[in-house]
C-alpha cells in the first residue's frame, strides 16, 4: 500500500507517480484531497486508488484500466472521457459525471447532478440515487442506469445510448421515448448492478432511448432555420 497525503504532496506529484507506474501491483491511498482538482486523472495501468475524502473537478478523468474510488463527494466532470476501468464515488457527484466516456464503468452510489452521462460513447454509468436534469444529453453509446428518479429533459437529443430508470422521470427530452423492457435486458441490468455493487431498486426498470427522429434533416422543419 502506497499512501500519498495531499497536504504534503501536490496533485501534480501524485499524478506523475501514478503515470510512471509500469502496471499492476500496489494499491494506493490518497489522503486529504480537500476538493482539489484533477486528482488521479489520466491513469493508464491497472492500479487501485482509493481517495479518502471529497474531491474537486475532473477526478479520474480519461481513466484507462485503473480502479479509482472516491470515498466522499466528487465535483464537476468526474471520470470525464473514461476509456476503461472503474471509477466509483461513495457520496454524490456534481454535474457532467462520466461526460463523453468511451468505456469502463462509473458508479455513483449517491445522487448524480445535472448532465450526468452527457455525450457518453460506450461507458456504463450506474447511479444508486437520482440523476439531475439533462442526463444522457446527446449520449451516443453505452448505458445510464438510474436507480432513483431522473430530472427533467432526460435523454435529450440522444443517439444510441440506452437509459434505464428505476424511479420517476420528471420529463423526457426531445426525441427521447420509452421503449420496451425485455427479460434479456432485465438480466443485463441486474448483472450490471451486481458488478457495480449497487442494490436494485424496489420497482422495475423502465427503458428509454432515441426515437431517431432527429437523425435526418426534415424539410418540414426548414422554416425553423
Amino acid at each position: 500500500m502506497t499512501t500519498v497525503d495531499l497536504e504534503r504532496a501536490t496533485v501534480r506529484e501524485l499524478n506523475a507517480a501514478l503515470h510512471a507506474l509500469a502496471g499492476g501491483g500496489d494499491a494506493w491511498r490518497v489522503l486529504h484531497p480537500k476538493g482539489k482538482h484533477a486528482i488521479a486523472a489520466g491513469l493508464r495501468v491497472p492500479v487501485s486508488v482509493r481517495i479518502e475524502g471529497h474531491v474537486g473537478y475532473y477526478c479520474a478523468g480519461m481513466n484507462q484500466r485503473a480502479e479509482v474510488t472516491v470515498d466522499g463527494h466528487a465535483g464537476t466532470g468526474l471520470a470525464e472521457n473514461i476509456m476503461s476501468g472503474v471509477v466509483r464515488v461513495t457520496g454524490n457527484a456534481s454535474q457532467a459525471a462520466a461526460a463523453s466516456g468511451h468505456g469502463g464503468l462509473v458508479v455513483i452510489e449517491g445522487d448524480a447532478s445535472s448532465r450526468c452521462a452527457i455525450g457518453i460513447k460506450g461507458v456504463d454509468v450506474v447511479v444508486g440515487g437520482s440523476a439531475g436534469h439533462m442526463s444522457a444529453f446527446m449520449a451516443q453509446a453505452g448505458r445510464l442506469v438510474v436507480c432513483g428518479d431522473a430530472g427533467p429533459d432526460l435523454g435529450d437529443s440522444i443517439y444510441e445510448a440506452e437509459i434505464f430508470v428505476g424511479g420517476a422521470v420528471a420529463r423526457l427530452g426531445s426525441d427521447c421515448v420509452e421503449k420496451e423492457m425485455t427479460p434479456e435486458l432485465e438480466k443485463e441490468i441486474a448483472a450490471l448492478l451486481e458488478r457495480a455493487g449497487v442494490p436494485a431498486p424496489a420497482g422495475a426498470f423502465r427503458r428509454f432511448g432515441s426515437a431517431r427522429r432527429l437523425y435526418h434533416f426534415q424539410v418540414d422543419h426548414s422554416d425553423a432555420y
Partner: protein
Amino acid sequence: MCGIVGLFLKDQALGPQLGALVTKMLVGMSDRGPDSAGIAIYRRPAPPGTAKLTLAHAAPDFAWRALAVELGAALSAPVALEARASHAVLLVPGDAARARGWLAANAPGVRVTSFGERIEIFKETGRPADVAARFALPAMEGTHAVGHTRMATESAVTTEHSHPFSTGPDLCLVHNGSLSNHNRLREWLRRRGVVFSTDNDSEVAAGYLAWRLGEGATLHEALAAALTDLDGFYTFAVGTRDGFAVLRDPFACKPAVLAETDGWVAMASEFRSIADLPGADRATVFEPKPGRVYAWSHAG
C-alpha cells in the same frame, strides 16, 4: 467566472471564529476571482434606537472622524465610528434613513455599502487574501457571512462594482453568473423607488429582492419569484439579518456545492473552499438543485 461563499453558523460557539473561517473560504476561491473580493458579515447588533452603516471612500486617508462629528451634529446625537482601511462602520441614532440622506447630500465620494442592524460589508479590488487582511477580517466574530471573489465579465473592475451588493436593510447578495434582463428590470425597479449605485447586473438582483421583501414577501417567496422575473445564469447566496439562502437558476450552469454539519451550513462555488472548515471531511455534501430555494434562519 467568480467565486461565491457563504457560512451560516448553527453552533454559536463557533462565532468567534467566523471571520477566520470565512477568510479561508474566500481565499480558497482566489483562482475563480482574483480581481476583487468582498464580504458581508453579520455581527454585533446595533443597540436599540440606533442603526449601523458601513461606508467606503476611495481615499485611503479619508477623514472619517471629522465626517462622524459633522454627521453627529446634523443628527443631534453622537455617532460612534470604527474605521477599517477604506471603510468605516458607524452607529447612528434612529433608523438609517436620515443618516443616509445627510450623507448623500453632504458627503460626496462617500458610499454606503450596507445599512441595518447587524450587517457590515467590506469590499475592495485586489487579491482575496489581501482584501481580507486589509479589513482584518480573520479577527471578526459573527453569526453568518457571505463573500465573493470577482473575475469581472459584465462591468468594470472597481470597488463599487465588487460584491456583495446591498440594497435593503441587512440584506445582501453575491452572484456568480450574468443576468440578461437587468437593464429593463433596473428601470422597472427604479420606477418603484429602488435606488441603484452602479450599472452592475448583480446589483439589480439585490434590488429586486429588497423590493420584494419591502412589499412583504418572505425571503423564500422573494427568491421563488426571482425564478420567474430574473433571466440569465446565476447562483446566488443571500444574507439577511437572521438568515442565509442559496438559489440557482433552472439551468444551473454555474457551480455550487453545499455542505452541512451540526455546527454549520456552508455554500461555495467549489468544495475546496469548504474543505478546511472544522468537520468538513464528515460533512454531508451535495449540490443544490436547480430552481430550488435553500434557506436557513436563526429566527427559528
